[in-house]
Structure formats: C-alpha cells, structure tokens
C-alpha cells in the first residue's frame, strides 16, 4: 500500500495514495462541521474537496472560528 506524506496544520500526516481532501476531512470526523480548508495556501470550497486528490508534500490547513477580540 503506497502512502503519501502531507503537512496537516503544520505537522506531518500520512495517508494512502489517491486520497482526496474530502477523504481527509472525513477521516478527521470533520465533515459537516464549520471548518474551512486550504491546500498550499489556496482556499478550497467544500464542493471541490472530493475532486482534489492530495499529493505528496501538500500543505493542508483546516481552520475553525474560536474566541478572540
């Protein structure tokens, strides 16, 4: 089984080759949550997650709103 190493929120993360952004978000149990996602600093709207296959060294950012002023 071939796996690829990506960067997820600044830390190394392994996943199987050919997995999409949608697969990644599902594996994190974040589907349907209020999160926003970017790959290599480009924001990817959720309808496009399934079509975005993750490549080695992709830098993925998953963010949420938290308390702040």
């Amino acid at each position, binding site marked *: 089984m071939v796996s690829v190493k990506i960067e997820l929120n600044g830390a190394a993360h392994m996943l199987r080759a050919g997995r999409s952004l949608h697969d990644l978000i599902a594996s994190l149990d974040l589907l349907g949550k209020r999160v926003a996602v970017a790959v290599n600093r480009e924001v990817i709207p959720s309808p496009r997650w399934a079509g975005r296959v993750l490549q080695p060294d992709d830098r993925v950012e998953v*963010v949420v709103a938290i308390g702040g002023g």
Partner: protein
Amino acid sequence: MKLNDTPDEIRPAVTDVGLTIAGKTYASRLLVGTGKYRDFDETRAAVDASGTDIVTVTIRRVNIGQHAHEPNLLDAVPPDRFTILPNTGGCFNAKDAVYTLQLARELLDGHPLCKLEVLGDEKTLFPNMPETLKAAEALVKDGFEVMVYCSDDPIQARILEDIGCVAVMPLASLIGSGMGILNPWNLSLIIEQARVPVIVDAGVGTASDAAIAMELGCDGVLMNTAIAHAREPVRMARAMRLAVQAGREAFLAGRMPRRFAASPSSPMAGRIA
C-alpha cells in the same frame, strides 16, 4: 401626568438610527469580542447582555484529533442571529492576514465583512501600519468589506478610508490594557474628517471609557477584555451597553460648554433676606 410620561414635544429631536457599516444598519453601537471567557455559555450570556449585533471571532487551526466533538463557538454565537466579524488577531504581516480572511470568508459562507488587524509586536500589539495598508489594499481589491484596526493617526486613517475600508478602528490604548481613552484629541481629529464610521477598538477598561469614546463622537466601540475580565462579565456587558447608549445620547444632546467659573443653578433674585 405621571412622572414618567414625557410629552412628545420634549422628546429628543434626533432619534439615533443606529450604526451603518457598508450599507447595513445595526441597532447597537457596541461590538464585542469572544476571547478570554470561561466557556461558551458565559460568552453567549455576555454577548446577549451587551445587546450587540456584531461579534468578532478569530480563525485558528483545528486541533487535529481533538476537535471533532468539541462544542463550536459558532453554535454558541450563531451567524443567523449575529453578524460574525472574523478578525486577524495574531497576524504580524499582510500575507498571513489576507490568507486568514480568505479562509474566514469560506468558513462564513462568503460574507465579506471582516476586521483586519496586523500587529507590530507582541509587547505592544500596536498595529504595523505599512503591513496594514498593504493588506487593506489587497482585501478591498478582493471584495472584502474591511473594518481596520489602526493607530490613532488621522493621516493613516484617511489613507485607509481612501483605500476603501468601511470603518476605521483606532486604538484608544493598548489592546487588553484597560487603560481607557488616552488620546481623545487624536480621536477627535479622526472623527472630524472621517466619512466612514470611526470605532474605538482596544483600550476600553470600564463603562465610563466607553461613554467618553461615544461622547467624543465615535460611531461605535469594540471591546473584549473589559467585559471578559470583569469580575462579573455578564453584568459588565450590560454596563457597557448602557454606557455606549448614554455616551451616544450625550453626544447627540451636545454637552454644556466648560467654563472656569461657577454659575448658580438657582436664581439669585428673590432670595429670602
């Protein structure tokens, strides 16, 4: 006539219509942050007591593996009840601030209103104005409605307005310091020239500070720590609501002139003896 019945003819002539930002009018002139509360219940109770319409939130990375079932701030302060104002708290350059707000726009279903703050250093949290101007330009070009944290410098405020920012938000004193309105004269210079709302962002410590800002003619006040770090945050949130209203009414009423002489309130004529 009962004591509380005010005849129509002596009701205030100018009714405050509210705070208009980027073409939308909000009843409340108080904007509040959501940081530093004990939990989301306290956040929501304080937000409700403040009477605010606009609530600012920060964008951060999800804690991978921990976050999935944690409560979400946007459930406590839902976007269908409040206008959510994403901010760039913690950004120290234009690039990160723009990227953060692009993510925020996606998170909030495309709504363009945002609070830009690009900080200069961790000690003062003073705005880095060159980076702020750069970010403001990029964001306005990208369709954002930018409310911008800035220095209390009328020239910088004017440049930000010219760029197309929808509100300028000078600090009254350092973020989180509670030191109050330290340079009312600079704020007055900004207010005098502004064609967009001027909102004091940062420095308010207690209710009188908020009232002073409003009496100067500010269009609104944004605060977080003054409420969240009060001994009783929910009570302070209510105090701030009243202070902003009182300050605004006093501004509209027009204060009496200051004079360095006494003037008796009772007539001198007709005194006994």
